[in-house]
């Protein structure tokens, strides 16, 4: 029987410094054992526990899409004990990945619908995964119009700049990447995510919106969504809480009766309305 607490060994294949403050790095992992990759059967929206020996584990959203191949991508903000240790690792180093954990974005419900992806700051990781998944040749036809609204404080704080560049050239995305204020060399949109959302005004007819970002962004974006006619059932988000086991046992990440690690992290606003605000 497989031990759900045992991480798969992975090798760090590539490290990319994503942002100008150098606080966000993306780690590309390759599994040491090919069978482990097969067992790691994931869907965008899920997360994994990253292990650095002697330091511990942290839950991080998966930024790669299963359509991209055998590697996994995680973008990690340097924040505490494990993330700092992770930032100090080098390409070629061995570490552990445990997962995939949690539910995912509701792709079955999203099929045949217009998709609105709204992200802010470094909460864009599982949204990158989702975008890549939706845009994959095999999947694209299953979904309607795709609207992307993604904001960061400055151009230098945007994640995945090369990927954004590719998306900006596609004609099947309503592409709206914004920064908080004017910046030298920035020719794109300027403004906060809620205001940009109001301007872009995606239709709520036969649509599902996924919103991930800092609490303040979500707080001001939700009323805009309501104004645009999005019901709580059509509006999806992803929660974070302190976690340990990641499999619904150790008891700390619950929001009411729901465990963020196992019942979540993805919830609709309709579900959140019935739950205490313990997140």
């Amino acid at each position, binding site marked *: 029987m497989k031990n759900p607490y045992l991480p798969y060994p992975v090798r760090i294949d590539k490290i990319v410094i994503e942002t100008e403050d150098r606080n966000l790095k993306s780690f590309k992992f390759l599994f040491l054992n090919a069978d482990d990759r097969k067992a790691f059967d994931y869907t965008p929206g899920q997360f994994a526990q990253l292990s650095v*020996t002697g330091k511990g584990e942290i839950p991080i959203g998966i930024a790669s899409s299963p359509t991209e191949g055998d590697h996994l991508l995680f973008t990690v903000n340097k924040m505490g004990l494990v993330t700092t240790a992770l930032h100090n690792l080098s390409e070629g180093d061995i570490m552990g990945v445990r997962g995939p954990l949690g539910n995912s974005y509701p792709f079955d419900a999203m099929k045949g619908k217009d998709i609105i992806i709204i992200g802010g700051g470094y909460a864009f990781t599982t949204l990158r995964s989702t975008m890549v998944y939706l845009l994959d040749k095999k999947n694209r036809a299953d979904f309607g119009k795709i609207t992307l609204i993604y904001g960061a404080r400055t151009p230098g704080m945007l994640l995945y700049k090369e990927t954004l560049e590719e998306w900006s050239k596609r004609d099947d995305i309503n592409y709206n990447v914004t920064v908080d204020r004017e910046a030298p060399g920035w020719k794109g949109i300027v403004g906060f995510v809620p205001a940009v959302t109001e301007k872009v005004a995606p239709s709520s007819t036969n649509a599902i919106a996924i919103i991930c970002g800092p609490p303040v962004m979500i707080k001001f974006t939700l009323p805009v969504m309501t104004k645009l006619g999005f019901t709580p059932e059509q509006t999806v988000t992803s929660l974070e809480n302190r976690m340990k086991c990641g499999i619904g046992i150790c008891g700390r990440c619950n929001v009411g009766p729901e465990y963020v690690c196992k019942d979540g992290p993805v919830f609709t606003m309709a579900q959140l309305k019935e739950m205490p605000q313990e997140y």
Partner: protein
Amino acid sequence: MEYKILKKNNVDTFIGELKKKYKFWGPKKKTKQITFGEVSSQQEMCLEDFTNSSMSPKGIFFPQSEIMLSFKKSGEQANIYKDVEISPSPKVVFGMRPCDARAFSLLDKIFTNDQFTDNYWVSKREATTLIGLGCNAPCSTCFCTSVNSHPFDEKGLDLLATDLGDRYLLKVLTEKGKKMTEGMSSLEDAKDSDITQQKELSTKAEGAITSHVSVDKIKDKSVLELYNNDMWSKVYESCLNCGTCTYVCPTCHCFDVQDEVSKEGGVRIRNWDSCMSWLFTIHTTGHNPRPSKKERVRQRFMHKFKYIPVKRDGEIGCVGCGRCVTLCPVNIDIREVANLMND
């Protein structure tokens, strides 16, 4: 249903027979504390004046600290976590109170869910044969009958023993229990009168429970209705967040996972944790979803009486053992809290 008689002057032979195949555990008195541990004779057990162990016996399957994985720092396998061997030796535990066994049956469902199996718990549970001991004389703080349990509850047990004075009546409840009794010369067949006597004792014990709690209306109230109830502003006031209730509780099962490092490598361990702790939920950003004592106290009671029932077909997350009532240093009484939730 199969019944056996174990005469009290035969208990040492009984233990001797079992020790050929199993480790034998029973309740022991260490200074003032009663704990379950390995024993080799009846004399070592404190069965005559035994009410219940001071701590919940959950540690038999869920130790306070437990090694889960190991790793080395150097060599070919450096920084790769490895399973540690889990091969618990077969064990018979005698004298488990029915409330605690019921708690195990709930934890069985928590440590195994639809996707994952916690083998650290499961392997020890499977290797253990539990002989319960019905409560002829429940304590004043017992309220098992209010939370769907009973002084002679059979759930979670392999055998249920009843003290009939000079002998125990053993009711065989599971295949595992049956296997244990097979070929034992210290056991005799029970008479119908023994079974009648057991039933009388069970009814008498039920009547002897003086604590009653009402939980019937909680299921009709929504999570948010209970969560936003004004009562929590009062209930938490005296709480010290010491965590005693969580450590002595037979159904509390929260744990922390940590890495410990030595010279050559290290281990990943899990330790009991407590929702009473501020650290339990704090994010690295400093944000804490349960920032004050009020949220933490509410979490514990909501978990027992609402969250677990919502997720598990109405099964209550409290078995009425009364340990937290006895041991809370500021006299927070779970019975009163449950009644307030039900009001």
